[in-house]
Each structure stands twice: as C-alpha cells, then as structure tokens.
C-alpha cells in the first residue's frame, strides 16, 4: 500500500511522470483485475504538468482510482455491465470536478459488481477482482476494484460507492480504510444510480488520515443533487484529544469465531486507550436485511428502467416494436443478478404487494433509524465487525440469498443514513479483518479521529 505522505516524499526526489508510469507498469502486470479502463495517456500528461510546476491543489500529483459507476467525461464508464460497456459520459460527476480542481491524477476506472449489485465483484461483466492477500479469494464488493487497487498498491487513493456496504466490505477484505459518509454529505451528481435513497460516494485509502483528506475534497455543497446537505468537512483530530468516549458494541452484529477473536482484541485495545465500552441492543436489526433488499430492489427496478437501448448503452442492430426491442436489449445487456433485482423490485412495487413489501420495509427503516438514534444518545460511537467472515473463496457464495446474508452487518447503516468507517484491525490466517465504527449524522470527524487513535495503537 502507498500512503499520501510516502508518495509526496518520493515526489521530492523523483519525477511524477516516472512514478505514475511505474504504477501503470504494475497495474498492467497485475493479476488482481482491479481496473476496467485505464486513463494512461491523460494521467501521464497530468503527471508531466505537475513536473513542469503545476502543483496547486490539496491532491496535487496524487494518483486516484475511480469506481466505474462514477461518471468521468470522455472516459468510458461501464458500471461493470455489458449494458454500458461502450458508454462514454459527456460530463463529470461532482466528485470528479472536485478531484480535478485539487490536482489529483485519475489513473482509471475500477472493477465492480454489475451496477453495484453484489458483495464479491463476481457479478462484474469484466471478471472477478482478486484479493491482494490471496488471489483465490474475492476482494469483496461491490467496490472490489477500488479496494484491491488500494490494498495491492496499484493506486494511492480510491473512490467507491456504498449502497449497503459496498465500500466497507472491500475495505475490510482488502485491509484498507473505507468510509461511507452520512447520506447527503457527498453529492451524488454523476453517480449512476442503483438505489438513490441509500447510496453515497466515499473515500478509500491505506490509512485514516488519507481517508479524511479525500473526504475533505469530495464533501460539500452541490445544488445538482437535491438531497445534498450543503455541508463541508474539515478534519480536526484534536476534537477528541484527551476525551473519554463511550463506545457501544452492537450485540446483534456478530461474526465467525476467527473474526470475533480479532474483534475482541480491538475492544481490549480501545479500553486500554481509556475509553468506556458498553453493549447496546438493536432489536430492529433482525428485520433490517429483508427491508434493505426490498427497498434497494424496488429503487433499482425504477432506476434501471432508463436502459432502453435508445439514447445510450447496449443496443440491437434492428429496431423492432417497442416492447420486443426493450425486453430484448435488457435480456442481453443485463447479467443475472441485475435481472433478479429488477424483477423482484418490480414485483414488490406491483399492485397488491406494495403494502406487504415496500411500505412495510420503509416502516422497518423507521425502526432501524430509531434504534440508532437511541443507541447514539447513550454512546458516542458504535462498533462491530464489518463483515461476519473472512474473505470468501472465489465461487464460494453460489446462491443469491446466501450472498445477501453476508451484508447483515453493513446494511442497517444505509437504512438509517448514518456514517460508518471500516478500519483494518489485523490479520487472521493471513487475511484482513475490519472493524466498523459508526456515528451519528455528520459525526465523520469523531469517527475518523477515533479511528486514527486506534490505528496508531495498532501499529
């Protein structure tokens, strides 16, 4: 892994052009399959400009990888799908505008589960992403490419998106830091939607400080996203300096014995830092996974109706009658997991089932939100294992429902819209384990400051 400070140190004695070329060399030889599209020519040009003295901006000369569901002008954006395998956006997402303003060097677009629907990056049209710690295992999903690129030293920073754990899962599996911000902190303008009311773009990096730095750049006001909160973020780790925090362990979020053993070591370490530990119970979590999938699938069925093979995306040579053409384009352009979610979402919203599934799920969402609010009144922060297991072997989760159940610890956070960070807490059998740190709305500073304390102690 490469930190921003290491990269900057090397920039003092070496040319950005040579360093970036060296990274591309590594990416091109790699087995991880972290990238779908490389931005080589443009990135090398930017590095050259840096060497010639263009050094303004918070991320000047720093390489970054972008999840392939974030729109990049003139750079292919596939969403990991055959449907968009030739799609070239004509505009930049808000976060891409910000990165360019701050001088970051975009290396390319990272591999992901098709339309961000998956927990292993195995649903990608462009093949599975391999875990940098064990190439026979998955890197997690859906932002698996971003996780593997950071974990494998194939970028310094990365952007992911998190609808039900898609940043935190690959962060946990690849031994990197990943943050899902509070809903509304980062503009979703230019993020190709899967489930709008749940998802956020967020930073992934090799350490807490770099994660905070990237969040500073991408957070903030944007009027093109009507759910944007209009708040900036500035990292100030002094906020909790010398303070004793009350940290709640969520009883309902567990894991395998191996994961729990590592987790309890982290709990002991937190105690040794002088913080108070207590246990909190969230009874609604029993229903959170079902509620999450119903809401996500329903929103997906409506969002993905835009893929009609007319304005962009996969198209057939012959235009037939509308219904036939539309149904055929979608049959050939989407993979099975995307089809499953669109179809089940259509079903959940259809006449006679709306009340049983969709409306009921939205009510459970209220209960989940209430549980978080109650727990966060009692505690400053909450913790749990990010994933209930170590990284899976490729092909291990064959059945869709078994895969959905792996998201049990991550989805309640998206239902409530609160922020959560996954922090690497060590290895078991050579594989990374992540701890999730959850806070109240817009408490990113406290989460990151606390994570920084734990990270320092772990080293």
């Amino acid at each position, binding site marked *: 892994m490469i930190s921003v400070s290491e990269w900057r140190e090397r920039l003092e004695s070496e040319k950005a052009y040579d360093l970036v070329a060296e990274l591309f060399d590594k990416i091109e030889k790699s087995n991880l399959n972290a990238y779908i599209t490389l931005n080589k020519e443009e990135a090398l040009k930017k590095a050259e400009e840096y060497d010639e003295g263009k050094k303004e901006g918070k991320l000047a000369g720093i390489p970054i990888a972008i999840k392939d569901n974030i729109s990049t002008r003139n750079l292919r954006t596939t969403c990991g799908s055959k449907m968009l395998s030739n799609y070239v956006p004509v505009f930049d997402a808000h976060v891409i505008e910000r990165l360019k303003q701050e001088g970051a060097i975009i290396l390319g677009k990272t591999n992901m589960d098709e339309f961000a629907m998956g927990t292993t990056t195995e649903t990608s049209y462009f093949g599975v992403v391999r875990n940098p710690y064990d190439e026979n295992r998955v890197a997690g999903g859906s932002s698996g490419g971003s996780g593997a690129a950071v974990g494998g030293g194939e970028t310094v920073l990365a952007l992911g998106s998190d609808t039900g754990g898609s940043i935190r899962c690959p962060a946990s599996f690849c031994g990197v830091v990943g943050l899902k911000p509070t809903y509304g902190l980062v503009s979703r303008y230019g993020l190709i939607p899967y489930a709008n009311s749940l998802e956020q773009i967020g930073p992934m990096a090799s350490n807490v400080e770099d994660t905070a730095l990237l969040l500073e750049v991408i957070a903030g006001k944007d009027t093109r996203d009507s759910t944007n909160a209009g708040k900036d973020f500035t990292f100030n780790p002094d906020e909790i300096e010398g303070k004793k925090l009350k940290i709640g362990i969520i009883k309902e979020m567990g894991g395998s014995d191996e994961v729990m053993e590592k987790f309890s070591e982290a709990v002991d370490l937190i105690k040794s830092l002088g913080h108070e530990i207590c246990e909190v119970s969230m009874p609604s979590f029993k229903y959170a996974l079902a509620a999450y999938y119903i809401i996500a699938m329903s929103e997906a069925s409506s969002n993905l109706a835009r893929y009609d093979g007319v304005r962009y995306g996969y198209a057939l040579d012959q235009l037939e009658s509308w219904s036939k053409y539309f149904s055929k384009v979608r049959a050939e352009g989407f993979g099975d997991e995307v089809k499953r979610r669109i179809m089940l979402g259509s079903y959940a919203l259809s006449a006679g089932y709306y009340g049983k599934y969709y409306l009921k799920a*939205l*009510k459970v969402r209220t209960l989940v939100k209430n549980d978080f609010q109650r727990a966060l009144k009692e505690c400053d922060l909450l913790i749990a294992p990010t994933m209930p297991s170590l990284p899976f072997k490729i092909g291990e989760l064959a059945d869709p429902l078994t895969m959905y159940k792996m998201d049990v610890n991550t989805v309640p956070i998206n239902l409530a819209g609160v922020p959560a960070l996954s922090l690497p807490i060590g290895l078991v059998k050579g594989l990374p384990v992540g701890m999730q740190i959850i806070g109240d709305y817009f408490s990113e500073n406290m989460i990151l400051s606390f994570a920084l304390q734990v990270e320092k102690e772990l080293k």
Partner: protein
Amino acid sequence: MITEQDVYHIANLAKIEIRSEEVDKFRREFQSILEYFDILDEVEEDVEPTFQVLPLSNVFREDTPKECLPREEALKNAKHVEDGYFKGPKVVE
C-alpha cells in the same frame, strides 16, 4: 408459491425477456428470497415510513437559463440516430 406463470408475469412487468430454460432457476430463487422477506410479517409496530433520512423537503434552485448539452454530445452514445434525433423503436403496433 411462485409459479412459472408468475415468473413470466414479473419478467413482463420488468420488460426483461426470459428464455424458457431460465424460468425454473428464477422461480426457485424468487421463491427462497420472497420466503425470506416474509420475516417482515412478524413486525407489528406501526410507525411512519421513512422514504429518505434527511430532514429536507422541496429543495428548489434559481430557475436561470444556462447552456445545455450540445446536440452532437447528447447523441454521441446512441446507436440509432436520424436527422439529429434519437431513433427509437415503433411504439404503436
């Protein structure tokens, strides 16, 4: 119970053509996923639904004209284009 008939109905709602050899696989998967969703029937507490989590409503911006996407750009990703327009399939049979 989800029947094969149901799967064809759902696929038609979603406008996704399915092949006969796929139907049984989808039927079994839908059956097990929907059975899992039935866990929500246990929830008796009646609360207001949460559509979105932020306390925002009616977000407006100034309605000022600005330059829009040039026609060539807008058509760049389309396969079927005629006289500067998107060409779509026949809507009326």
